[in-house]
Each structure stands twice: as structure tokens, then as C-alpha cells.
């Protein structure tokens, strides 16, 4: 019991410290998304405990993912008027993006000779992490690999998104929001909010809708592409 509490408390402490570092030095490579897991892994490896021992305590945090995901309904509720006004543009581009995510990951994974389990783990990567992990498990993937792949996708979104917006002259707030929300889930939203609030809200809607499309389309597309 004491051990479990140690790992739970330790993870929270490392997370808070990582957040503090990022606030002082807001560099992409210092994001808590990278720093916190790396430090936790280092501590586990040094102390020589197994992941299961760690997860006995820290796993309580994982249980909070679902309530936190459900809280996203509030984004949808608050911005329903933006969605209604631009329903066609948002739904069409998000659907294409979400389907492109599944098709290109499965296609590339096959091309590069990755096995089916990994393919299923990579396919739902553009959806927000908790949903991506659930979809992955549903389809026979490994949720942990999906969690990592989703995290990397979010980081790529932060780095490449602004470049794509600039190079391809994506000027409308709707298109920008869709770009960030569809490709890079909640990490994308944080970047989208740096443009303006409409971009941020659209990114939120796009993330939600990407999750729905991925959930509905992934099982069929994976079977079809195999």
C-alpha cells in the first residue's frame, strides 16, 4: 500500500515539476508530455521495480482519463453555434482527415512490414488519447503503443502544424482549427488557441468529431485494407 502511494505521489510530483520547468522554459522538447514520462521511466529503471508494481499505484491516474474525456462534451456544448454555422466545412474536412489518418497509417505500416498488432495500434492515432486507446483495444491493438504513437502525433502537430499553415497559406480560422484538431487532438487545440478563439473552438470540435469518425471507420477500413 505504501509502495502504491509512493508511485502515485511520485508521478504527480514529477508531473508538477515538469510543468514548472516548461513554464520557465517553454521549448517544445521540454514539454511535460516528454519530460514527465522520461523521468518516471528513469526512476523506475533505477529502482528496479516492474511496471506492474508501478501501475498498482499510478494506475489510479489512468482511471481519471474517462471523466476527463467526458468533460470534453462541454467544449462541444459551448461552441455548438460555430459548428452549426460551419457544419459542412468542418464535417467534410474532418472526415477526410480522419480517414486519411487511418488509411495512410495502415498503408505505410504494411509497406514497411510492421505486423498487424502494430498496424491496429497506429491506426486510431489521430483521435484523442483515451479514445484512441479504447479503439486500439477494440481492434486488437496494444493500447500502450497507441498512447505513445498518439503522444508523438500530438508533438508533431505542434511542430509541423504552424509550418503547414504558413507554407500552404491556410488562412481561414475554420480550416486552421480543423487542421490542428483533426491531426493533433488536444495538443493541436492548445496550438490552435494561439491563433484566435474561433480556431481553438473549431479545433475542439474537430478533435471530438475525429474521435467519432475514427471509432466508426477504423474497424471497417482496417479490415478492408488488409
Amino acid at each position, binding site marked *: 500500500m505504501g509502495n502504491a502511494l509512493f508511485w502515485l505521489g511520485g508521478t504527480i510530483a514529477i508531473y508538477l515539476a515538469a510543468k514548472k520547468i516548461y513554464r520557465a522554459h517553454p521549448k517544445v522538447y521540454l514539454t511535460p508530455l516528454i519530460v514527465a514520462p522520461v523521468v518516471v521511466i528513469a526512476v523506475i529503471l533505477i529502482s528496479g521495480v516492474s511496471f506492474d508494481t508501478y501501475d498498482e499505484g499510478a494506475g489510479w491516474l489512468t482511471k481519471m482519463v474517462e471523466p476527463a474525456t467526458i468533460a470534453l462534451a462541454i467544449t462541444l456544448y459551448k461552441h455548438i453555434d460555430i459548428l452549426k454555422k460551419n457544419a459542412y466545412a468542418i464535417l467534410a*474536412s474532418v472526415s477526410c482527415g480522419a480517414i486519411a489518418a487511418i488509411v495512410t497509417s495502415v498503408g505505410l505500416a504494411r509497406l514497411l512490414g510492421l505486423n498487424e498488432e502494430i498496424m491496429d495500434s497506429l491506426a486510431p492515432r489521430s483521435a484523442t488519447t483515451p479514445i484512441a486507446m479504447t479503439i486500439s483495444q477494440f481492434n486488437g491493438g496494444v493500447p500502450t*503503443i497507441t498512447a505513445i504513437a498518439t503522444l508523438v502525433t500530438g508533438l508533431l502537430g505542434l511542430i509541423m502544424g504552424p509550418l503547414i499553415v504558413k507554407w500552404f497559406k491556410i488562412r481561414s480560422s475554420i480550416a*486552421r482549427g480543423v487542421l490542428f484538431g483533426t491531426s493533433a487532438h488536444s495538443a493541436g487545440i492548445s496550438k490552435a488557441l494561439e491563433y484566435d478563439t474561433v480556431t481553438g473552438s473549431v479545433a475542439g470540435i474537430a478533435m471530438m468529431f475525429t474521435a467519432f469518425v475514427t471509432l466508426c471507420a477504423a474497424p471497417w477500413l482496417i479490415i478492408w485494407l488488409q
Partner: protein
Amino acid sequence: MKKLWITTAQIILLIVIAQIADVLVQWLHLPIPGSIVGIILLFLLLQLKVIRLEWVERGSKFLVAEMLLFFIPATVGIINYKSLIVNSGLSISITIIVSTLAVMLCAGLIGQWITGRKERAAS
């Protein structure tokens, strides 16, 4: 102090909704994850004014802001997959990078094309 209690109570309310969503999925044998059912459930409850925005707003803001913390254990799970990283890490990385680029171009350009056409039609 009062703020802290309100936030805690709201988080508990969200946990209860999550539990209800999970029970619904089990009872009705729904082929959908509980989190999606929970989102739909909360959205409907807000739309139908059963739950007021003020009852969940503060708690949800906290949960969404600290979302990252809840993913740490899942991410740390990678230590069980060392050989996978050594063997397939490069292929996985290429897949993720190229696929993410494709998604951005696809979503961004189609969005720009549709909204651009609408603006031109308006002017």
C-alpha cells in the same frame, strides 16, 4: 478553500457520469467505448438543462487542463516494449510522421477550399 470543494464535487459528478456511461455500455452491450457514451450523455444532459453548465464547468476545466497527468502511466508502459522499439522504432516513426503530414494537408486544404469558396461566393 470553498473553490477547492466546488471543483472536487464537480469532478465527482463527472466520475459518476463516467460510471453511468460504463454501466450503460455493459447493460446494452453497446459496441462503443464508455468515454464516447459519456460525452453524448453529458452533452444531452446539458442540452436538456438537466445539468447546468456551472455544475460541471470548473471541475471539467481542471480535468482537461491536467489531462496530461492521467496519461503518464500509460506512456510509461512503453518500458514493457523495449524490443519493439529496437526492432520497429524507425518504421513506426516514419509511419507516424508521414501519416500526420497527410492528415494535416488533407484536413487543412479541404477546409480552406470549402471556406474559401464560401467567402468568394459571398463577395
